[in-house]
C-alpha cells in the first residue's frame, strides 16, 4: 500500500540547504551581523550537487548554506554580543542626539567585548589544524601590521598585529623553521615548516598601504577577519613558545643594562628590542638543551620503500645543513637594505647581524668591525670598502637559502648584473612545465653532488659506451681483415699467369668473395609514425562517454605544450641576441 504522497523537497538535496535570506531570518540578524558571524565562525556557502533541487526548483543562483551549519549557529553565544552591541550603539546614538555627551562617552568607554577563544578551539580541533590554516592569517596580519590608523579598523588592531607577527617571527628564528624564501613583486614569500606543516606567507614590500576606494576594498570585512586571526595567532604563538620553553610575552636577554636606566618608557624599549629580532629570547629553563635533533632511524626496507626512505634521509640531511647555513658569519646590513626580512632570514640560519646604530634599536657591532665577513649592500658603488669582507647584494642571501648552500659571491658583488632570481616553489618533477636553463643548472648542481658521492659505484651507462666501442672496433677490425684479404688477392692476381688449372679454380674460388652486408637502415621516424597512426585510429575508439573529457584533456595538454614552446623560443631568441652582442 502506498502511503500518503510525500511533499517535494522534504528530503534529500532539497532539504539540505537554506538560502542566505532564510538563514538570516532564522538567526534574526541583519546582513552585516550575519556576515560577521559567518566570518568569525568560519561558515561558508556550499555548492550543491544539483542546484535546481537544492533551491527547491527556483532558477538562478542563490547563496546556499548547509541547513545544519545554520542550526549550529543558532546556539552561538556571540550572537547575543552582537545584539548587545547593537543596543549599546543605539544608546550612544540616543545620548548624542540628546546632547548627553558624558553619557555617550561613558557608553563608548565600555565597549561590548567579544571573546573568540571558544571559536578558535571549535574551528581548529587540534594545533596541527590551526597550523595548516595559518597562511591567510599570517599574510593578512602582516599586511595589517603595516597599516596606519584608518576608518573602520579599530585603533589597536594594527599594533596588535605587529606585535603578534614579531612574536611569531621570533619563534621561527628560535626554532630555525624557515625553509624557503622568495622575493616577488608582491612582497617577500617565507615558507616555514612547523610540526611538519608548511606555512607560507607574504611580507609586503615597504610602504604597502595605499588608500583604497570603497568599491575596491571594504576594510570592515578585512578587519573582521583580522579580529579572528589575531586571537588565532595569539594562541598559536602561545603554544609555540610554550613548547619551546620560552616566556610567552617574549623576553629578550638584556644586552646592556645601563642603556635603559634613564629611559622613561622601559616597555617601549623592550618591545623595540623584540622588534629588532636581533636579541636571543630568554628561556624558562636554565639548562640550555642544545638541539638534540632526532636523526631519522634507519630501517632495512626493500624496493620502492627503500628508495623513498633514502630520499627522506637526503632531505633531512639537507635541512640539517640548511639550519646552520650562515653560522659563523658576521653580516652588516647597509641602511638601504630592507632590514626586517634580511634579519629574519639571516638570524634563522645562524648569522650574527648588525646595522647602522641610528637606523634601529638592536645594532650589536659597528661597521668598522674587522671581523665582519659579509656586508649586504644595495647600491651601485660604495665609497669606503674593507678588504676583509665580501660586499654582496641582498639577492645572494635569498638564493643561497633556496640553493641550501652558500653560493659563490662573485655574481652578487656590488654593481654586478644579478642572475635571475628563481622561485623555489616550482615543482621540478613536473616535466610538462617550462623550466628555464638556470633552474636546470641549479638542479643539476645538486645532482652532481649526489653523483660525486656515488662515484664509487661504477655507472652502468659507461659500460654500455665501452661495449659500443668494442663493437665498433670489432667491425673495423673485420673490415681491416677484409681489406687485407683483398690486398692479398690483388697481390695474388699478379701471380696469375704462372698458375695451373687447380690454381685457377682456387683463384675463382677466391674471386667469389663475400662483401660485408649493410645493416638495414630503419627509419626511426617511420616506426614512430606508424605508432602514431595506430594510436590515432585507436583514439577514435574512445568511449562516447569519455570523448569530451578526452578531448578537453588533450586540448589542455596542447595548450601547455604551446606555452612551453613559446617560452623556449623566446629564450632562444634572447640567447642569440646576447651571443651577437658579445
Amino acid at each position, binding site marked *: 500500500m502506498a502511503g500518503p504522497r510525500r511533499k517535494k523537497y522534504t528530503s534529500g538535496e532539497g532539504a539540505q540547504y537554506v538560502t542566505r535570506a532564510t538563514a538570516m531570518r532564522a538567526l534574526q540578524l541583519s546582513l552585516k551581523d550575519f556576515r560577521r558571524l*559567518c566570518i568569525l565562525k568560519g561558515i561558508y556557502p*556550499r*555548492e550543491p550537487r544539483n542546484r535546481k533541487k537544492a533551491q527547491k526548483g527556483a532558477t538562478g543562483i542563490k547563496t546556499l548554506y548547509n541547513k545544519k551549519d545554520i542550526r549550529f549557529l543558532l546556539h552561538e553565544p556571540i550572537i547575543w554580543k552582537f545584539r548587545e552591541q547593537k543596543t549599546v550603539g543605539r544608546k550612544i546614538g540616543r545620548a548624542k542626539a540628546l546632547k548627553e555627551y558624558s553619557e555617550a562617552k561613558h557608553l563608548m568607554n565600555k565597549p561590548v567585548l567579544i571573546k573568540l577563544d571558544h571559536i578558535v578551539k571549535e574551528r581548529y580541533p587540534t594545533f596541527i589544524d590551526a597550523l595548516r*590554516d595559518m597562511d591567510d592569517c599570517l599574510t593578512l596580519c602582516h599586511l595589517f601590521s603595516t597599516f596606519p590608523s584608518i576608518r573602520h579598523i579599530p585603533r589597536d588592531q594594527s599594533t596588535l598585529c605587529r606585535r603578534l607577527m614579531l612574536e611569531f617571527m621570533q619563534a621561527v628564528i628560535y626554532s630555525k623553521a624557515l625553509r624557503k624564501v622568495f622575493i616577488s613583486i608582491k612582497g617577500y614569500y617565507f615558507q616555514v615548516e612547523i610540526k611538519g606543516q608548511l606555512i607560507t606567507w607574504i611580507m609586503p*614590500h615597504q610602504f604597502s598601504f595605499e588608500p583604497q576606494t570603497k568599491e575596491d576594498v571594504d576594510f570592515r570585512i578585512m578587519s573582521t577577519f583580522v579580529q579572528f586571526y589575531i586571537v588565532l595567532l595569539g594562541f598559536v604563538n602561545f603554544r609555540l613558545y610554550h613548547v619551546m620553553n620560552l616566556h610567552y610575552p617574549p623576553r629578550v636577554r638584556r644586552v646592556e643594562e645601563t642603556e635603559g636606566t634613564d629611559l622613561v618608557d622601559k616597555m617601549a624599549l623592550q618591545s623595540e628590542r623584540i622588534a629588532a629580532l636581533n636579541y636571543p629570547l630568554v628561556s624558562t629553563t636554565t639548562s640550555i638543551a642544545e638541539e638534540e635533533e632526532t636523526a631519522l632511524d634507519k630501517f632495512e626496507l626493500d624496493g620502492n620503500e627503500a628508495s623513498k626512505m633514502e630520499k627522506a634521509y637526503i632531505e633531512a640531511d639537507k635541512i640539517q645543513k640548511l639550519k646552520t647555513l650562515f653560522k659563523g658569519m658576521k653580516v652588516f646590513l647597509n641602511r638601504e637594505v630592507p632590514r626586517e626580512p634580511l634579519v629574519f632570514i639571516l638570524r634563522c640560519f645562524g648569522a650574527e647581524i648588525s646595522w647602522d646604530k641610528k637606523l634601529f634599536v638592536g645594532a650589536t657591532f659597528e661597521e668598522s668591525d674587522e671581523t665582519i665577513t659579509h656586508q649586504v649592500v644595495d647600491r651601485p658603488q660604495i665609497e669606503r670598502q674593507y678588504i676583509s669582507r665580501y660586499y654582496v647584494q641582498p639577492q645572494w642571501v635569498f638564493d643561497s637559502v633556496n640553493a641550501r648552500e652558500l653560493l659563490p659571491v662573485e655574481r652578487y658583488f656590488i654593481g654586478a648584473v644579478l642572475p*635571475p632570481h628563481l622561485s623555489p616553489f616550482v615543482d621540478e618533477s613536473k616535466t610538462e612545465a617550462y623550466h628555464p636553463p638556470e633552474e636546470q643548472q641549479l638542479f643539476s648542481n645538486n645532482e652532481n653532488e649526489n653523483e660525486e658521492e656515488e662515484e664509487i659505484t661504477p655507472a652502468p651507462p659507461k659500460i654500455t659506451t665501452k661495449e659500443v666501442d668494442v663493437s665498433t672496433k670489432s667491425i673495423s677490425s673485420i673490415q681491416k681483415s677484409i681489406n687485407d684479404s683483398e690486398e692479398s688477392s690483388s697481390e695474388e692476381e699478379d701471380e696469375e699467369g704462372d698458375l695451373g688449372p687447380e690454381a685457377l679454380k682456387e683463384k675463382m674460388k677466391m674471386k667469389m668473395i663475400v662483401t660485408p652486408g649493410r645493416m638495414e637502415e630503419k627509419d626511426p621516424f617511420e616506426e614512430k609514425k606508424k605508432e602514431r597512426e595506430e594510436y590515432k585510429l585507436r583514439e577514435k575508439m574512445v568511449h562516447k562517454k569519455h570523448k569530451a573529457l578526452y578531448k578537453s584533456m588533450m586540448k589542455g595538454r596542447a595548450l601547455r605544450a604551446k606555452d612551453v614552446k613559446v617560452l623556449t623560443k623566446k629564450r632562444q631568441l634572447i640567447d642569440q641576441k646576447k651571443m651577437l652582442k658579445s
Partner: protein
Amino acid sequence: MVMPELSKKRKQSSLEKSQLGDEKKKVVSLKDVVGESDDLISSLPEDGVVDSDVSDDSSEDEDEPVDEDEFNEDSESEGDEDLNSEIDSDELEWESENEEEESSQESDGDPEKEDAVEIKSKNGIEKSKIGLRKEGVPGTSTQPPGEDEYAEGDTSDEEDIRNTVGNIPINWYDEFDHIGYDWDGRKILKPEHGDQLDEFLKKIEDPDFWRKVRNVQTGQDVVLSDKDINQIKRLESHKIPDEAFDDYAPWIEWFSSEVLEMPLRKFPEHKKSFLPSKDEMKKVSKYVHALKMGWMKTRKAMKAKEKKEKQKGPQFYLLWKTDDVADEMRRIENHIPAPKRPLPNHSESYNPPEEYLFNEQEMRKWNRERKSLGNKKLHFVPQKFNSLRQVPAYKRFIRERFMRCLDLYMCPRAIKMKLTIEPEELVPQLPSPADLQPFPTTASIYYKGHTDMVRSISVDPTGQFMASAADDGTVKFWEISTGRCLRTATFSGTARCVAWNPSSQMSLVAVAVDRKVYLVNPRIGCQDHIDQTDELLDKRPYQDKVTPPRVEAAVQWEYLSEGELHEQGVLIVLNHFKEVKQVQWHWKGDYVFSLMPDGENRSILIHQLSRGRSQTPFNRARGLVQAACFHPTKPYFLVATQRNVRIYDLVKQEMVKKLITSSKWISDITVHPGGDNLLIGTYDRKVLWFDLELSTKPYKTLSLHSQAVRSVAYHKRYPLFASVSDDMSLIISHGMVYNDLLQNALIVPLKRFSCHDKVNDFSLLNVTFHPQQPWVFTSGADGNIVLYT
C-alpha cells in the same frame, strides 16, 4: 416631588419681578466671561478707560486682609449710586425667595421697606453666619439688600454656589422660565431682559453698555469693572494678567544647598536622625571586611586594573593541550577547508629570467583580457628590476588580500574529485594491429583509365578480373594482377553501378546506366563459360504467366541478338521506368535486383534470369529507399530507407525485423558473410555495426571518419571490413565475429589509407574486397581505382 410646585411658585414671583422692569447688575467672574463668550471681549472698546477706583480697590483687596466692617462700609459707600436700583431688585428677590419660609410676610402692607431695614440691621449677624456655613447657604439669600455682593470683587467660589444645576449646557433650560435651582431647591428665574427694542434703547442710553456681560449661569447682566477689562486686555496681548506682578524680581532663596532660611518641613528632625544607623554600620563593616580580604576592590583599584588589562591586550593561554588530540565539541559538519593559494612561479620574481617578460603582443593580449572575467594565465605583468632597492610596493596587494577574504567567506565550497589519470588511459586497450594480420598495408596498384569519377567496382568471383563503372559512360574490365584494362564497354549515359554475377559458371556482369540495366558478357576468362552464358541468354524463355501490368509498366526485357550493343557483349537490356541506382546479384546468380530511389512503391524490382521475368516484392513505399541487399544465407532481403533498415522474408513475404539506426541518412548497407552481422554507413559520419541476434539497435557506433561515409564492405573470408568516406580516407578494420553467442564481436581499426584526391568535394566512392585475398579496392572521384595489398 416638591420641585414642580416650587417652580410654579417661582414663576409667579419672577413674573412679578419682571413687572418691576429692573435689571440686575452684577459683576460676572472673569472666568465665566472669558470662557463663554469671546465675542463679548472682542466687542469691548480697545481704548477702554480704566477705572482707577476699581483697580485701587482690587489691589487693596489683595494686599490687605479685609476687615468685615470696613468691607461693609466700603460696599455701602461705593455702591451708592450704581446700585441703588439694584437694591430694589435684590430686595424683591429676597422677598420672593423668602416666600416659602415666611409667607406671612407677604401679607404685610408695605413689606419692602421693612424688610430692607430688617436685613440691614441683620447684616452683621448674617455675614458671620455665612462665614460659618458657607456652603450650606446660597449667596443670594444671604445678600443683604441694597448692597452689591460683587462690590469687593468677584470670587468664583460664590458664583458656583448660586446655581446648583452644575456644569451643563445652559440651553437645556431654554424652554423654561428658570435657569436652575438655588441651594434651597428654589427655582432661579430668568431675569427679564426685554425685547430687541429695549435692548437697542439700552445700547443708546446706557454708557456702560459695552462693559456689560451676561452671566449665563444666572442670566443676569454683569458690568465689568475697569480692573477686569484691564486684565482681559492683558490676557489678549499675552501678558501676565496681574499688572503689578514683577517678572524680573530677584529670586529669594529660602531653602537650598547653601541657604537654610526656612525648613522644608514644619516639624524638627527626629531624635533618631542624630544617631548613626545600625543597619548601615553593618553594611559598612561588611564592605570593610570584603576590602580587607580582597574580595572587593575599590573603584580606583578596579579602574587601574582595567586600564592595565587594556594595556596588556588580549590574554592568551594554552588552548590546545596536545598537538593532535581534538576535544569533543560540536563543530561545523563536513568541513571543507579552503584551498590554499597557489605558490608563485618564476614569473612573479622581482628579477625573473627574461623569457617570462611580456613582449608587445603578449602585453596587448594581457591588456585586452584584463577586464574579462575568464581565467587568465597571469593576473599581473611580470617585471624585472635590476636591484632590490628599486622594487616598489605592489599596488594591488590590499585588493588581492581583500578578494581572498571574500573568497573565504562567500565562495561556495564543494569537494570535487580531481582526475589524476592521463588522457591515454581513456583510450581503450586494443590488440595490436600487427597481431591481427593479414590486412592490406600498402597501396600497390593504381588502375588509371577512366576520365570521370568511378562510381562502382566489382570483382569477378574467381578474383582474376574486375569491372568498374564510371560517370563517363564506360565500363572497364581490368585484369587485377597486371592492372591491364582488358576491355571497355561504352554506353550512353552515366554508368552508376556494376555487379559481377557471383556464379562461377557464368560470365555475366550487370551494369546500371541511367534507366537501363544491361546484362553484359564481358567475354574474358574461361571460354566455356563465355559461350555457355551466350547460349543461355540467347532468347527469352517461355512466359507461362502473364506479367502483371504494374510490373510491365516498370520494366521491359529486351534480348539482343545483334547490333552495336550486342557487339559489346550486351545480351539483355532491362528498360526501367526510373533511373536505376544500384544492381546486385543474389549469391546463387539467378536473381538480380535493381533499385530506383524515385520508384516509390516499385523502387525495387527483382529479376529472375532463368525465367526472364521481373517481380515487385513490395506494394507499399516506406520512405526513400537508399540501398538494399540480399541476405547471404537466408532468403531475406534487406532494404535501407533513409533512417531505418527493414529485413523481409521473401519466401514468407513478411517483414522480419526493423532496425533502428538513429542516424539521419543511410548511405550504404552490407551483410557479414556469416549472416548475423550488418554494417551500415551513414552520411552523418558514422559506421554502424548491427548484431542481428543482439538487438535492433547498433551494437557499436564507430565514428572513424570525419565526413560522410560513402560505402562499406565486408571481406568474404577474413575478419575484415572497410569503409570509405568523403574525408579522403579508407579505413580498414578488424571485425571478428565469434561463433560463441556469449562473445561479442571484436572491432579494431587497423589501417588508414588516403590515396585519392578530392574532386568537387567527392573523393572515395566505393570499396570492395577481393573475394579470396586480403586485398581491397577503392574507386575515387579522380577516376582512379586503387588496390591495396
